[in-house]
């Protein structure tokens, strides 16, 4: 019985870009800055593709919440092999206060609407580092969760997931449907090739707003300020070992 997967993708500032704070100190500069798909979401899409290639999955729906440019991210996922997309439009000025909780509510509604068996997300987004969406989505749906997955296998009863935890690897078994989140070592994602990029242009992408799904977008936070980390100060050269020891004592690093 082939499964249906809903994969979430977020458009974030490319990991290689040097982040700059806006002059009003309420956010970071995004205008004209290179964006790409959140790397963990690439891994999520890749895993869904591998399950499709193993004939465990027969349809991959990719969803992205964001402004108009989120379509680029959806197209990339379609070029990687997803079957169709859903673009949940969020106006640019609402993006700063669009939180994981809102995303989880959207995903939960979509999961029910599309009757999917697996919701597959990246474990966190590299811009906010929240690591909340998968867990909250599972809770809203009352589905089991397999987060930080580094290996996913299908069993008769559902799924067997190996998770990366602080102490090592944890193996859990869940029933279906379930919410999963991809960790770094789950796979190495494929590149989108030109023929697939061309094919992706023809794949269907549905547009909707959170209101269409009955999700309340009201912000629950207010950004107070965004600041650079403190500038690195010049180091002090010490004359010799005695000097070093004296300085360490002075700064309270040594009691002896």
């Amino acid at each position: 019985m082939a499964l249906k997967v809903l994969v979430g993708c977020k458009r974030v500032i490319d990991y290689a870009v040097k982040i700059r704070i806006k002059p009003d100190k309420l956010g970071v500069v995004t205008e004209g800055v290179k964006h790409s798909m959140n790397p963990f979401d690439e891994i999520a899409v890749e895993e869904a593709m591998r399950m499709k290639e193993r004939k465990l999955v027969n349809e991959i729906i990719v969803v992205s919440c964001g402004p108009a440019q989120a379509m680029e991210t959806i197209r990339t996922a379609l070029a990687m092999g997803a079957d169709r997309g859903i673009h949940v439009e969020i106006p640019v000025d609402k993006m700063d206060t669009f939180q994981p909780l809102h995303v989880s509510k959207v995903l939960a509604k979509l999961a029910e609407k599309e009757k999917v068996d697996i919701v597959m997300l990246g474990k966190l987004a590299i811009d906010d580092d929240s690591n909340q969406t998968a867990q909250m989505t599972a809770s809203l749906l009352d589905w089991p969760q397999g987060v930080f997955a580094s290996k996913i296998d299908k069993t008769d009863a559902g799924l067997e997931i190996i998770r990366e935890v602080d102490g090592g690897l944890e193996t859990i078994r869940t029933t279906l449907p379930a919410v999963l989140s991809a960790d770094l070592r789950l796979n190495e994602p494929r590149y989108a090739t030109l023929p697939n990029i061309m094919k992706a242009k023809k794949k269907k992408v549905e547009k909707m707003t959170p209101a269409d799904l009955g999700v309340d977008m009201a912000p629950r936070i207010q950004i107070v300020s965004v600041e650079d980390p403190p500038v690195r100060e010049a180091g002090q050269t010490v004359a010799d070992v005695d000097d070093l020891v004296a300085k360490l004592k002075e700064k309270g690093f040594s009691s002896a």
Partner: protein
Amino acid sequence: AVMRGVPQLLSRARLVRAGFSASEPVLAVQAGILQPDKFTQTFVQIRGLKSSKVIYQAPLTAVDIADSGKQLKQELEAIVGPGNVSSGESVVLQHGQDEGPHPGKSPDIVVFPSSTGEVSEVCKICTRHNVPIIPYGTGTGLEGGISAVEGGVCVNVSKNMNKILQIHQEDFSAVVQPGISREMLNQEMRADGLWFPVDPGADASVCGMCATGASGTNAVRYGTMKENCLNLEVVLADGRIIHTAGIGSRPKKSSAGYNLTSLFLGSEGTLGIITSATICLHAIPESVAAAVVGFPTVQNAVDTVVMTLQCSVPMARMELLDEVQMKACNEYSGLSYPETPHLFLEFHGSESEVESQTETVRDIAADNEGGEFQWAVQQEDRTKLWTARHRAYYADIALRPGCRSLTTDVCVPVSALPDLVTATKADIAENGLIGPMVGHVGDGNFHTMLLFDPADPEEFRKCKEVANKMARSAIALGGTCTGEHGVGQGKMALLEEQFGKDGIDVMRQIKGALDPQQLMNPGKVFSRN
């Protein structure tokens, strides 16, 4: 003519131009910035000279030398900004030493220009002061190309000039500044289905790769820098800025004018500074498969390669690792390959193309006594399969911890490869050296990593001897003394052997026309006379 600049023996040609007869024993010394001891040495030579015709500037005191250096520094600071000029010890040290085994000489000053215009002004200043100019990209070369053998100003064009100026997806081309390395470019394009396939191993500057005429493991299918460069923006020693294929030109082909792009490509910084490169991009292959197969002898492996090429299989990578290399890889990466010569292969194409290519090569390998044919399609599995090849260099160094490697680089017609490899291995064994071998067999190009103890000059000398012998054999077999690393300093004599005196003289004439003061990266590729 009294010129300020580097104390040096002026070439006969220069003296003739200045009005002296070619037969006069003339020693002319110019004063300028340089380490005082070098100046003294030259000064001593003047005193020992019998001829009466000695032209030199009044003996400089240490203050004079320092002053002329200060003046130069001030002029450079006025162009690039005071924060972008340095003569700090660690800075100059880093800029004189590349990743090869030869100790490099530090420049006197390093500048970090931010635009082609600034590079041009820097060159004009250096020309006025008669000071050598050494272009610097990422310093990842292996032949001492950036060593400032006569001191001078190192122009680091990668630090501040690091933009991708244009990417033309539909035309498969891009224009990049020197600070863009090939991995940076590929990261930028990864979601667009495009890549830049020239892969010399190191994460080198693309413009630097143009300067050395770099190549890599993918050359058998995608070509070297020579086949993938459409245009270069170059700053000459006198500050003129030219575009080798036309201003803003990037057509796939052109019959317009002399092929200046080819001239500057591979000139190793001796003709000008490359400030931007227009390069060819390729489509990321739809499907990639990797395979590894072992053979009883190198001959078997090379025969497989030759037959594969004759069957027109469009191989993307064909790498030969000899048994010494396989042993090193096994030990370093915890693998268990049989210690025999192996071919590491990569296939690119559509899924069906890759499948049929793999089948063809599997059969050819079997016909040539090939062993188990391991292959993989999944990204991680391919990575695992190729780990041995990727870590080859580090595996070699680990064979003898603390040692360095003299990496040789010769290229011969593919049919000559087995003989050359056999002869080289015999030579290595005779000299009691360890020299694992890695080859881009599809191109007839191979490298031996001759290991030496840096504290043992005799061992280094033996390595050099083996390397030179290999290069000379390669030339005799119709090949070249350097397939991809460039001549730098170490292979200047070999270049003479390969081209003959007239060939080198033509190069000298061209150099003389474009760089009359001999300031561009002196001491490289060929000697002054």
